[in-house]
């Protein structure tokens, strides 16, 4: 589904991603772990299409089409979704209107009429239940005055509504207490299907206790320096990152 080859990207001439290679297939959950500043958020931003970052080489093939040729909204229409580490507040637009606008645009691109209001509302209710969200939430302004946990829940709610093929969860666990974490993780797990895939980007092992990955990759200094199964995450939790980053630094320089 997703095939990243030799992806190099940076900002203001400073290279942050120094040649990323990654393959993700349908039905898989991948975790990307790494210390602060390793390039985790840059990777997710580049996949989503943030123009702040300049891509200097490589490709990001999604169903055999290079995402780098597409605008962020076109990527979304293809089925890419990014759950933001820091979701943006949008005063003046309610959650329900925001989601309606997003779904209507996607359907328009696919040549479909807008979803009937009743169906849309029904779907929203169903997904809200999944994430233990309070009824008044739909009429609140998008992320405005939301707590950290509410913002993250709102990200997963949007994901549930938009039903992406590939969801990238960027530090979704940050700002969540343990109960909220369980609810969010449970939501993500329930949305998992054989025809979609998830990339979980996280600093800590904690989230991976609830969203169990098939593969774990360690990102350091702009490169994936180690890949393995879910046991790799436990090892990192136990031993920290030093033991592998040292080896990598010896190989590529720090």
């Amino acid at each position, binding site marked *: 589904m997703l095939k990243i080859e030799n992806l190099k990207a940076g900002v203001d001439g400073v290279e942050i991603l120094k040649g990323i290679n990654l393959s993700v297939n349908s039905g898989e959950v991948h975790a990307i772990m790494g210390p602060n500043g390793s390039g985790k958020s840059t990777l997710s931003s580049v996949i*989503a*299409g*943030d*123009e702040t970052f300049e891509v200097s080489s490589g490709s990001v093939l999604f169903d055999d089409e290079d995402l780098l040729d597409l*605008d*962020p*909204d076109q*990527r*979304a*229409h293809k089925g*890419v*979704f*990014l759950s*933001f580490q820091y*979701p*943006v*507040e*949008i*005063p*003046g*637009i309610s959650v329900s*209107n*925001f989601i*309606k*606008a*997003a*779904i*209507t*645009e*996607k359907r328009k*691109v696919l040549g479909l009429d*807008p979803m009937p209001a009743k169906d849309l509302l029904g779907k929203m209710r169903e997904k809200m239940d999944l994430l233990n969200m309070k009824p008044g939430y739909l009429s609140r302004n998008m992320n405005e005055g939301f707590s950290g946990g509410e913002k993250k829940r709102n990200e997963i709610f*949007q994901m549930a509504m*938009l039903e992406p093929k590939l969801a990238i969860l960027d530090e979704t666990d940050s700002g969540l207490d343990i109960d909220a974490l369980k609810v969010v993780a449970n939501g993500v797990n329930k949305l998992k299907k054989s025809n979609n895939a998830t990339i979980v980007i996280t600093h800590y092992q904690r989230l991976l206790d609830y969203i169990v990955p098939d593969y774990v990759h360690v990102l350091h200094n702009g490169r994936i320096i180690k890949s393995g199964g879910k046991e790799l995450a436990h090892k990192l939790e136990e031993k920290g990152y030093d033991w592998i980053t040292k080896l990598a630094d010896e190989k590529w320089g720090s």
Partner: protein
Amino acid sequence: MGLLEKIEQYTNRGTDKVSNKTAYSKFIDLGFPSVKNEEWKYTSLKKIISNNFEIENQGEEITDQEIKNNSLDLDNKVVFLNGELYQKPTISGVKIEKNIDLSPKYNDAITALNAALAKNGYNITVSENTIVDKPLEILFLTKNKSENLAQYRNEIIVKKNSSIKIIEQVKNLNNNLCFSNMFTNINLEEKAIIEFNKLQNNNESQIIVDNTNINQETGSNSTFNTLLFGGLFTRNNLNFSQNGERCESNMNGVVILDNSEFADNHTYMDHLKANCESNELYKGIYLGKSKGVFNGKIMVRPDAQKINAFQANNNLLLSDDSSINSKPQLEIYADDVKCSHGCTIGQLDEDAIFYMNTRGISKEDAKAILTYAFASDALNKISIPYLYDVAKDLISKKLNVDLSF
């Protein structure tokens, strides 16, 4: 020939032309304000008054279909066509007449000109204890054979414990420049309520200078919504005077201009008595080469203790060539008051645009939605659902986007 010469030529034609000689002398003394006048510093009339406006009306026929197309087509309509009262509704408890009482009120050259020469307008009186359910639509339509000056002088009196909602439009229907000089005096008696909506969605042949004075007695409540979506040149003066305690005055404005349109919203809030409140929120969105001016003055007199006065003017400049001059002014002579004012000028939030992009919303639509969202808190003050929908629709058209939510 410029407007001043045209006016002099007109008044020289006969003694019956001037209805108020004192006002006329005042106008001649002062002349049209120039940019040297502090209140007109950013608003130049120079080009406007150099046009060859006719003072006497040479109206062309306006059909019922045109009235329908240019109105909201509400049940209750007061319609003026080319200076004459054409239609008025019958509403229980409300007296609507052609304004014959040309009160001598004027505060500057423009209002003096209006007092001196205006021959028409309405007088609306809402009897005591009358709640007018349906909003009243007031239309001033002009279609003239040449460039022309149109002046109206209006009065609204809302008696004790009564309330009314009004939607007013001043519209020029053809391409001949029309300079509408409007004056409206509103008296709110004890506990009276008014919601006055000015819908200014005009083409680029319409020039408006509007002066509205609102005099409030004890416990009265006024809300003014200015929805300014177009017009060559618009100058709105809203002057509130709270003459009794426990009054509330609300002003909300949404301004969206494009091309070379110009608009100046001048407000003056005079707090004379204690325990009153005023809220002012103006949102400006400027595209193309449009220019805006906001000038909001709050005066708190020595007797006006324990008042709450709030003012905000937020602006979005969506093009490199658009501009806004915003000037909040506070003058406070009482010591136990709560006053705040703020003014912002900015662009759309790029992070928010990207966020919306990643949800599949195109850049253009994201910008339009954010722009609409920017205006929404002022827009939400409109209490007439139909007008709210009309405004939203006009904004979508102006921003060239579908805001169908």
